[in-house]
């Protein structure tokens, strides 16, 4: 909880500053946009959080987003598949990718970094191959399907703000993920093996199966993210769609309190982390006149955030120790 507190405080500070600097920050339209973007990135970040909890890493997320994001319109618009068929296909594909990663990592004991780095290169390459580097998109069709990402649900008492549909996905994913991680035995197994794989194995836990599951969750949510991303923007270019998203997802998870050494993570924290990144980018476009230093600012804020967090933690520890010693 303490970890979530720090990052939440940072998010709050950034929001307050932006709201003061730009009166439009709190407009319904902007909040809707922010909520939708946070939802999209939050979903893929939750996925990678599961892998991080096991002490692994998934660098292939951006490429899975690309593969699904390009694959779906390619199947639907270019090849005329039915909607259920195409969606089922990309879903199975995402699951299969996770399974593939998990098997290589557990059965062949290959390092996750290497396996998923190859995935990063491979899946985007495949997407570029089958689309022949052409942009794929839905054009003016598939409006109903696209409601999954573009739809909004009005709230009776707040005029001007409706809940974007991806937020519903995020909430469902987050609740299921949080319950899974904290209240079920499988979540506990993940936490245990993330810290001490041997101890978990000696306790009779099938650690391989759990690790595979984590990679499947990660790829599946990356696939869901890719689907929602492409439904939202309506088209995808295989060369850059989802580029660097793995880094944003990992950054959100780590900001939200996941330890890359494994064994630690909270779902709420991950969502707050994802929101922070989106608010920062939003702030830069709303408040400043130049967006080319956007990444510099994000980097600096995250860095200052974790430094401040660490210093506060130390200060508190010293205070406690003094209180005790005195």
């Amino acid at each position, binding site marked *: 909880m303490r970890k979530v507190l720090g990052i939440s405080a940072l998010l709050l500070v950034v929001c307050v500053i932006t709201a003061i600097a730009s009166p439009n920050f709190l*407009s319904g339209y*902007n909040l809707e946009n922010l909520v939708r973007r946070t939802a999209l990135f939050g979903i893929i970040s939750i996925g990678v959080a599961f892998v991080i909890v096991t002490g692994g890493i998934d660098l292939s997320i951006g490429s899975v987003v690309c593969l699904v994001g390009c694959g779906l319109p390619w199947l639907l618009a270019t090849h005329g598949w039915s909607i259920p068929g195409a969606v089922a296909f990309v879903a199975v594909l995402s699951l299969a990718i996770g399974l593939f990663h998990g098997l290589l990592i557990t059965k062949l004991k290959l390092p996750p970094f290497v396996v998923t780095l190859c995935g990063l290169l491979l899946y985007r390459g495949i997407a570029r191959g089958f689309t022949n580097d052409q942009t794929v998109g839905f*054009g003016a069709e598939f409006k109903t399907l696209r409601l999954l990402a573009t739809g909004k649900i009005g709230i009776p008492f707040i005029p*001007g703000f409706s809940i974007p549909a991806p937020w519903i996905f995020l909430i469902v994913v987050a609740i299921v993920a949080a319950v899974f991680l904290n209240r079920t035995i499988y979540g506990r197994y993940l936490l245990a093996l993330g810290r001490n794989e041997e101890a978990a194995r000696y306790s009779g836990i099938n650690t391989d199966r759990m690790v595979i599951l984590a990679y499947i969750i990660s790829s599946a949510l990356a696939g869901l993210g890719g689907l929602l991303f492409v439904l939202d923007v309506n088209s995808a*270019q295989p060369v*850059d769609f989802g580029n660097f998203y793995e880094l944003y997802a990992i950054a959100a998870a780590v900001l939200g309190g996941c330890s890359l050494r494994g064994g630690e993570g909270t779902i709420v924290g991950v969502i707050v982390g994802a929101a922070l990144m989106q608010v920062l980018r939003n702030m830069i476009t*709303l408040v400043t006149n130049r967006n080319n230093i956007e*990444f510099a600012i994000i980097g600096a804020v995250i860095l200052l955030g974790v430094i401040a967090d660490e210093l506060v933690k130390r200060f508190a520890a010293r205070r406690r120790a003094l209180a005790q010693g005195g």
Partner: protein
Amino acid sequence: KPTPDSAPASGNTGGKKKIAFVSNGVASFWTIAAAGVKAAGEKAGVDAETLMPVEGITDQKRIIEDLLTRGIHGIAVSPIDPVNQTELLNQVSRRTKLITHDSDAPNSERVLYIGMDNYKAGRLCGDLVREALPNGGSVMLFIGRLEQDNAKRRRQGVIDAILGRPSNPSNFDPPSQVIEGNGFKILGTLTDQFDRAKGKANAEDTLAKYPDVNCMVGLFAYNPPLMIEALSQANKLGKVKVVAFDEDDATLDGIQNGTVHGTVVQNPYLYGYKSVEILAELAKGNNSVVPADKFIDIPARQIRKDTVTEFWADLKVKTAPTK
């Protein structure tokens, strides 16, 4: 019809009108345009700024949304994927004045399009190749990416002109195919995703694979300088013809000293300048600036040794930092 959105339709009242110019990526080309944006903004007395998305279409959408949030009186966009972005553009046009530049979205509700025809410009470039190689020969094409609409059309124009095909912008030759005809052999099209080291490697690998290649054509601004680098390191400057696109300093320098046959230049400065000028008028409610065909043509030009000095001097004046 969707429910009317709640975005602030215009920004803070009172101050200057706000105009935004959104590119399709980050490149020197766009920094020249930004100079035009700035100049026109000062002249028209509006707040004009240039925004460049880094991460493709998702990022462009985000920037446009955030601009709408901020409240904007006019926006000029170079759509990355015109067909699929029509809906987004229509949403924008309902909230503010929208024009397209550089790359058009003809099916959208944009007020007008400022730019040139990439296919035509490509053909101009192809003509330069035929000039450089009057007896035909082998040609390799280099380009940053192929999936952008303007890139595709530009490349197709080059190919069609070289092969002497009639004008048909809807042609498409797959990049991996060797195309022969009209005494020419087009060996292929290599992309680099804006990685310069890779772009240079592409030129080098071409020289290794086809030691007798006759002409290299660089279709994105940074390609010709990389080709020149590779050639000079291979001691083949002048032996292999170079035809360029856009106005990188190294390209212009090459034309001056004869190592580059010529280049086709667009006029990004005018894209920026005109966009802001027209949006400023539109924002005031003056619709008379819109031509009947909703197209303001800023044609591409061929620059050869004879015209390069004048062109370069003019460019330097326009992009000189204003104090």
